[in-house]
C-alpha cells in the first residue's frame, strides 16, 4: 500500500545575513492512511517547522513531500493551531464553518457539517457567541471542530492542548480520540507531553535537537479505545515512557553543549 504522506529528504535552512540555521535535516517519513503519528522532541527541534511546511505555510529548502489525494474535492490538509488560532471577529459557528466557506461549498452542506461538529464538541449552545467569552478549552474545541468540518485528507496539529490545564487536557484528548475514531483521518500531532503521545499515537517519532532529524520511532500497539488509566497501568507503556524520557533528557543535554 502506498503511503498517505511521504516525506523525502526534507531539509529546511533559515538564512539571515551571514548566518544560517538548519531547522530540519534530511527528514524522511512515510505515514500510512489513518495513522495517528506524534512527534516528540526538545524545544526548537524543528517540529513546528515540519508541520508548517506540510501546511504550505513554509517552503522546504530542499527535498519534497506528497500527500495522497483520495477525493478530488477535498483539501489536502487542515491545521489545528496552538492557542489563539480561533478568529476573534467570527462567531463560534462562523469559525467552524470557515474552511467550508472559503471553499465556497453549498450553504446547506456548510450548515449541516458545521452543526454536526459543533454538536460533536459540545458547543451547539455557544454557536452564536464570540470567542472572547469562551474558555481556553472551548476555544481549542472550536479549532478542532473547524479542522474536522473541513474534511481534509490529513490533519496537522501543533501542540493544540499545550496551553490547557491538566483536567481540560484529559477531556479534550479523549474527545479528540472519539472524533478521530469516527473519521479515521491521518493525523500528525506535535506534543511535548509523553503521556499525551502514548495515549494518542499509533506511532511516536522522536526528533533530535537542532538540526532536527528523526532519530527513533516507537510503535504503540495498545488496543483502542484507550484511556489514560490503561496507559499508566501498562508495563510496556511505562517502559516506552522512560525510554522517551531518557531520549529527551539526552537531547536537551546535547543542545546545551
Amino acid at each position: 500500500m502506498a503511503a498517505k504522506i511521504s516525506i523525502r529528504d526534507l531539509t529546511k535552512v533559515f538564512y539571515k545575513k551571514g548566518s544560517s540555521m538548519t531547522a530540519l535535516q534530511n527528514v524522511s517519513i512515510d505515514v500510512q492512511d489513518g495513522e495517528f503519528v506524534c512527534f516528540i522532541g526538545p524545544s526548537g527541534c524543528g517540529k513546528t517547522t515540519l508541520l508548517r511546511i506540510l501546511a504550505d505555510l513554509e517552503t522546504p529548502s530542499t527535498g519534497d513531500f506528497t500527500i495522497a489525494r483520495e477525493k478530488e474535492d477535498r483539501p489536502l490538509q487542515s491545521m489545528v493551531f496552538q492557542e489563539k488560532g480561533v478568529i476573534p471577529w467570527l462567531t463560534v459557528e462562523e469559525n467552524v464553518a470557515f474552511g467550508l466557506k472559503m471553499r465556497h461549498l453549498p450553504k446547506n452542506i456548510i450548515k449541516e457539517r458545521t452543526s454536526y461538529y459543533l454538536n460533536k464538541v459540545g458547543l451547539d449552545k455557544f454557536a452564536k457567541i464570540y470567542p472572547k467569552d469562551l474558555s481556553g478549552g472551548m476555544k481549542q474545541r472550536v479549532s478542532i471542530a473547524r479542522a474536522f468540518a473541513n474534511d481534509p485528507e490529513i490533519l496537522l496539529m501543533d501542540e493544540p492542548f499545550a496551553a490547557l490545564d491538566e483536567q481540560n487536557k484529559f477531556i479534550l484528548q479523549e474527545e479528540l480520540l472519539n472524533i478521530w475514531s469516527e473519521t479515521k483521518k491521518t493525523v500528525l500531532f506535535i506534543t511535548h507531553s509523553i503521556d499525551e503521545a502514548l495515549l494518542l499515537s499509533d506511532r511516536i517519532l522522536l526528533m533530535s535537537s537542532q538540526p532536527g532529524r528523526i532519530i527513533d520511532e516507537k510503535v504503540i500497539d495498545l488496543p483502542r479505545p484507550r484511556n489514560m488509566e490503561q496507559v499508566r497501568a501498562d508495563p510496556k507503556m511505562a517502559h516506552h515512557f522512560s525510554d522517551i524520557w531518557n531520549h529527551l533528557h539526552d537531547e536537551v543535554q546535547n543542545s546545551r553543549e
Partner: protein
Amino acid sequence: MREKHIAQIHDPIAVEQEEWRKRQIRNRFKQILTISSPIFILLLWELLSRTGLIDARFFPPPTKIVGTFIMMGTSGELFSHIGISLYRIFAGFLLGVIPAIILGLIMGLYSPIRHFLSPLIMALMPIPTLALLPIIIIIFGVGEVSKVVTIAGSVFFPVIINTVAGVVNIDRIYLDVAKNYGADSKNFFFKIALPGSLPVMLEGIQMGQAIALLTIVAAEMMGANSGIGYLIWTSYKAFLLQEMYVGLVLISFFGYLFSLILRGFQNKLLPWR
C-alpha cells in the same frame, strides 16, 4: 442602636448591602461631579459678567447667548448656516474616509504597494490642507466642491495611516489560518483584513471627525459666505460677539455629538471586542 450594629455584623448580607449602598452613593457623587464642572463654569461666567467683573462686551453672560441663539433660530438664518456646514462636513468626511479605507487596506495587505506609497503619504501628511486652500480654490472653484475637498483632504490622512497600521498589526496567526484554510484574495480582504483592522481604523475615523470640524470652521472663515465658520468670522468682524459665541457653542455641540455617534457605531461594529 448598639444592638442593631451587632445584628448587622452577624448578618453577612446586611453588611454587603451596606457596602453596596455606599458604592452606589459614591458612584452617584462621581456622576454629579461630571455634570457639575460645566455648570459651575457657566454660573461663574454668568455671575462675573453680570456683576461687571469681566467685560460683558467680550464675555456676554451665557443667558444672553442663549437668548441670541433663540432669536437667530426663529429668524431661520441660523439653520441655513448649520445645514450648509453639516452638508460640507458629511460630504467631505465620506469623500475622505472611503478612499482612505480602501487604499489603506490595499497598502496594509500588499507590502510592495505599501513601500511604494508610504513615502508619499508621509510627505503629504504634515502639510495642513488649509494651507492648500488657495490651490484647491484655483482647481475646484469657489463653490461647494472646494470646501468638501478641503475636508476630505484633512480627514484622509489619519484614516489611511490608522487603517494601514490596523492591517499590519493583525496577529500573524489569523493570516496563517486564512491561508491554511484556502482563503482567496477577496476573502482575505473582507474576512480578515477589514474586520481585523477595524478597531484601529475606527480610532482613525474618530480622529478624522475632530479634524473635519476644525477644518470646516477655518475653511469657512477663509473663503465662504455661509456656514458656522462664516457666522463666527462675520460676527466677530462686526463685533457681534453674542452671535460669535452662538457659533462657537454650536461647534462644540456638534463635536460632542459626532463623538457620541461614532462611539455608538464602534460598539455596534465591534461586537467581538
